Each structure stands twice: as structure tokens, then as C-alpha cells.
């Protein structure tokens, strides 16, 4: 496969997201710009300009009408995807590290940083889609519908489970917790990763009944959203920044690499800047894709499972459209089952 290299950012990537149809890819980096790309040919559709600081996170509404971004300038911004206009700015006391739309797009959660005497919080905002003709998108509620405060350890990432029944959050101390999105009550908290090893990413399966965490403790874990049981563990030899579940084939893709501050002291090969493919069920590593010159900060898979993109510390986004060999690979057991 021939990757498409996107060099629209001047600083390291922080998050990339495909929209639900997979035709658009959104990327954010530490350089204040939000980019939208056509995933098929790597053409840049446009940029969303307005942030005053590093942009940490991006998410796209399920209907590809609104784009939410969270930034180190303490704001969450809502953009009209088609025109590139900013339709709403929410101010927070601290930086916003993660935003995520609920499965139906009616709510948006924002994870805020713990800093300057403020505790880390998860805010839930109601989203209004206007009249359906892209009018009235700027009429959004000013105040969050709910605020969850994390007293023990700040949340670093969060997402919505199936039917928006729970909010699942990953914490700085390596634990995962489950919140009720109506009351904000913490329903469960499980120490799934090694203590004090931050969870860097959390991504859900297409039906959102299970999810994958990527942690600094060099492992990724597959957890059930309902009871936070650990279903699978994928060990690796490097701190992980991102992990994604592939639809269509039963794989997971993990990305990471030596922490950015140690990179200059190691060669590219030792740095382990590769995307690692594991079989989701058998937990075996089945291959690697190299290409980045720095750690992989973020990975996202095309919702149809035909491509994946990775964003690195080197400022590049690489879109890989999978070859036939990727789809043909099967374990002997899988082949036998196919025959039956």
C-alpha cells in the first residue's frame, strides 16, 4: 500500500478523526489549525481557523454537520463543517483535552485539565442542530447540562458507551471509570492499567459495547463497556499513545513510541515508531507498518475498515488504504469456520 502523506500541520499531531461515512478526515495539532481532508486522495478541503492555542482534540458529529474541537486556549469550539465558520465558543477555566459526541450527536462531552487550583472535570453540553438547513447552528446552550468533577485522579480521555448509557473515562492513574450521563454519578472505577500510568486514548467498537484503552504502561486493553471487565490484553514494548479497533477485520492497531522528550537520544529504529497490528481475538502481533519519524500520537480507522490514518509527532498524517493481503489474512481456525 502506498500511504498518502498530509503535511498541513507545522507541529505534532494531537488527534485525527474520520467522519462516519469515512470520506472526510479531520486532524488537529499543536499549531492552532484544524484541517479537513478528503480521505480518498488526501486533498485538503479546508481549515478551521480561530483557536489561540494548541488544539488537543477533535470530534465530528455523526451527521457530519458540526465539528467540535478542544484546545489549550481553554475553549471548546463548534464549527460548521461545510463553511468552516465557528458557530459557538464555550469557555472553560482550564485546557480541554478531549471532546466526544454522543452516538446520536445530541450531546458533547468535554474533558478539562486539572490545573491552577481547578479540578479535572467532564462537562456535558447539549448540541442543537438548528433547522436542518445549516441555519440556527449558533443557537447553543451556554452552560453545560452536567459537570462531573474527578476528585481523585483527573480524567485524561472519555467517550460514550452504547446508546449513551454510560460515560467511560480513562484516568491519569491508569484506572477506568464509568459514569451515569444523567446524574453524573460514578458507577464503577477499575484499575485496569498499572498504577500511575496514564491512559492516553480510548476508542470504541462500532457498536460501542466494548472499547480499547492505550496506556503509558506499554499495553492496550479491551474492556467491556457494561461492567468494565478486561476482555483482552495487547502487550507491547513501548508506551502507547493511541489504539483503534478495526471494523471488517478482527484486528486492533496500536501506536506509540518513545516519549517525545527522549526521541533525540535514540535512532528511528530503536524508537519503535511503528503502527502495530494485533489480532483482536488471539492477541498476537501480526505485523507492523513503519513510516513516521516520531512517535505515533493518534490513530483512527476508516469506519468501513478499508483504510487507517495515523498522526505522528513528526507533524505528518499518513493515510493507508489497505491492500488485498490485509483482507486475505486469516488464521487456520477462521478459515475452517469459513468453510462450514
Amino acid at each position: 500500500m502506498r500511504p498518502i502523506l498530509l503535511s498541513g500541520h507545522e507541529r505534532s499531531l494531537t488527534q485525527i478523526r474520520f467522519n462516519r461515512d469515512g470520506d472526510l478526515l479531520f486532524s488537529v495539532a499543536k499549531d492552532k489549525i484544524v484541517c479537513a481532508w478528503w480521505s480518498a486522495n488526501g486533498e485538503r478541503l479546508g481549515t478551521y481557523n480561530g483557536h489561540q492555542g494548541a488544539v488537543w482534540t477533535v470530534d465530528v458529529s455523526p451527521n457530519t454537520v458540526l465539528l467540535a474541537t478542544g484546545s489549550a486556549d481553554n475553549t471548546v469550539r463548534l464549527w460548521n463543517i461545510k463553511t468552516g465558520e465557528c458557530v459557538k465558543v464555550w469557555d472553560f477555566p482550564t485546557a480541554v483535552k478531549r471532546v466526544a459526541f454522543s452516538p446520536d450527536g445530541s450531546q458533547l462531552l468535554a474533558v478539562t485539565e486539572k490545573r491552577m487550583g481547578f479540578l479535572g472535570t467532564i462537562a456535558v453540553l447539549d448540541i442543537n442542530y438548528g433547522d436542518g438547513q445549516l441555519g440556527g447552528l449558533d443557537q447553543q446552550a451556554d452552560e453545560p447540562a452536567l459537570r462531573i468533577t474527578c476528585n481523585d485522579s483527573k480524567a485524561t480521555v472519555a467517550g460514550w458507551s452504547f446508546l449513551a448509557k454510560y460515560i467511560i473515562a480513562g484516568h491519569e492513574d491508569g484506572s477506568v471509570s464509568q459514569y451515569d450521563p444523567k446524574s453524573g454519578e460514578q458507577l464503577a472505577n477499575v484499575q485496569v492499567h498499572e498504577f500511575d500510568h496514564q491512559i492516553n486514548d480510548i476508542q470504541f467498537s462500532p457498536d460501542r459495547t466494548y472499547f480499547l484503552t492505550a496506556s503509558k504502561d506499554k499495553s492496550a486493553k479491551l474492556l467491556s463497556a457494561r461492567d468494565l471487565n478486561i476482555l483482552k490484553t495487547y502487550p507491547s514494548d513501548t508506551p502507547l499513545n493511541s489504539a483503534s479497533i478495526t471494523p471488517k477485520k478482527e484486528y486492533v492497531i496500536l501506536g506509540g513510541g518513545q516519549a517525545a522528550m527522549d526521541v533525540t537520544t535514540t535512532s528511528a529504529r530503536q524508537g519503535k515508531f511503528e503502527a502495530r497490528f494485533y489480532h483482536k481475538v488471539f492477541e498476537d502481533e501480526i505485523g507492523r507498518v513503519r513510516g513516521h519519524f516520531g512517535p505515533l500520537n493518534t490513530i483512527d480507522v476508516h469506519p468501513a475498515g478499508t483504510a487507517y490514518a495515523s498522526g505522528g509527532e513528526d507533524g505528518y498524517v499518513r493515510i493507508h488504504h489497505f491492500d488485498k493481503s490485509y483482507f486475505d489474512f486469516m488464521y487456520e481456525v477462521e478459515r475452517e469456520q469459513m468453510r462450514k
Partner: protein
Amino acid sequence: MSRLGNRADWADDEEFDDPSALPAQQVITNKDGTKTVISYRFNDDNKKVKVTRRIKTTVVRENVNPQVAERRSWAKFGNEKGHAAGPSFDTTSVGENIIFRPSINWKAQAKEAEKDGGEKGSMKDQLKDKKVKCRICSGEHFTARCPFKDTMAPVEEPSTGGMDAGEADAGGLGAGKSSYVPPHLRNGGAAGGEKMGGSRFEKDDLATLRVTNVSELAEEQELRDLFERFGRVTRVFLARDRETQRAKGFAFISYADRSDAVRACEKLDGFGYRHLILRVEFAKRST
């Protein structure tokens, strides 16, 4: 002198009148459906550069849902506002091809590949555990010292396949590894001695026909069917254009038996095949 006198100096040819003028872009349609676009531009050093591009257009039809189709018509915005459609060179490029083949024992394979890479360096290491083996009796001595040298011919290795024009360069590179193989070791080390004995090459050559004036639309299988009437054909080689895949107009047919080849040569020389009259003769040995 006088002839040059009334003409402008050759140095002020039209081309140099206006250095900023560039020849117009040329578009040539090739017969295989591709297009050649020749354009001129100035590079950073202000030198004129001719750019020749060959473009092959393929139409890929894809069904998408209406929302996706509607999005395709969106105008660019932000920093891209007003830019032309299509990826721009400063933001989008294509990387090197990556071979990604998932496998169960991925780790073992990767380790092996690494080991291969490390060993490549010295020829001595590669030959370290190679044993001297006689090609005649497989004993542990050089072929030249073999006691059966005068009585037996060398044992053919199945991979050394004659002088196939198509395979000639592939065979020359040894076993596919990237490391250099000296000429005397190519083709499994058998080539040198074999030529001296002159057994197989010449025999093969004697039963090979050169067929010319073959139609452009000819197929290897058709030729085989045509020539197989006279005896067992061991090899059919139809020269094709590398890009268009059309026949170039000549072919080589090898027979197992020379007498069959003689008969085929007689019967098929002047035979009408696909609107052209074939010319069949014995191939001359290329030296």
C-alpha cells in the same frame, strides 16, 4: 559572408528574443490510450525546464450515499479558500510503497529478515558453510578433478532453463537476493562448465525456429497450437511491447526434436496467419 549579412545574427534567433516566452504546452495522444503532456517552465535558477509527463486515465465508478455525493461538491474554505480542485503539492504527497502482509509468526520473520540484513556484508560469511560439490558425481571435489570427467556429462539442474530471452536477465541475477553474485557463480555455478561442453545450449538452438511477420494480435497459445501439429514444442516466446502488451511481430518456437522443427519450418514458412504471411526460419545463434 554576404548571405549572413542581410539576415539577423544567429544569436538573436527568435527563441532568444524574449527569454520569458515558453513554448506552448503540447498534448499527444498515444496509441495505447495514454497521453503525453509536454510543458515548459522555469526552475528556481531561471533555467528553462522541459517537463514530459505520461498520463493514463482510468475511470473508477463508485456508489456512495447521497450525503457523501453532496459533500463532494463543497467549496474549499479557510486556508484553502479559492484553491483549485485536486490535491495541492504543498500539503499532500504520496509516500513510498509499504509492503504489509499480516502473518501469525510475524516476530520470527522479522528477526530472520534482520539477520539476513546483517549477513549481507561479507562474501566470506556467505560462503563459509558452502561445501565443494562436484556437478558430475556430487562428490566433495571440484568438477574439474572428477574421476568421471571424461565419461559423464554434468547433471542438469532443473532451474537452468536454456537461453530464454524473457528470462535471461532474471536468471543472471542469481537467487533473487540483493547481494552481488560473481558471473562464474550465476545460474547455480553451472553455466561456465556447461558452455564448454556445449551440450544443451546448442541442442536447444538447433531446434528453435524464428518466426517473423507475426500479427500484432497474436497470442502465445495460438502459436503453440499452430506449431504443435508438427511435434512437441518445449517453449514459445512471443516478444511483446512492455507497455502496450501487444506482440512485436516476432516469436521463437523451440521443439524437442530437430526433425519436427525442420518439418514445421518447411510447412509454415509462407503460411497465412491472421492476415499476415509468416516467415519461419531457423534461429541463428546470438553470440
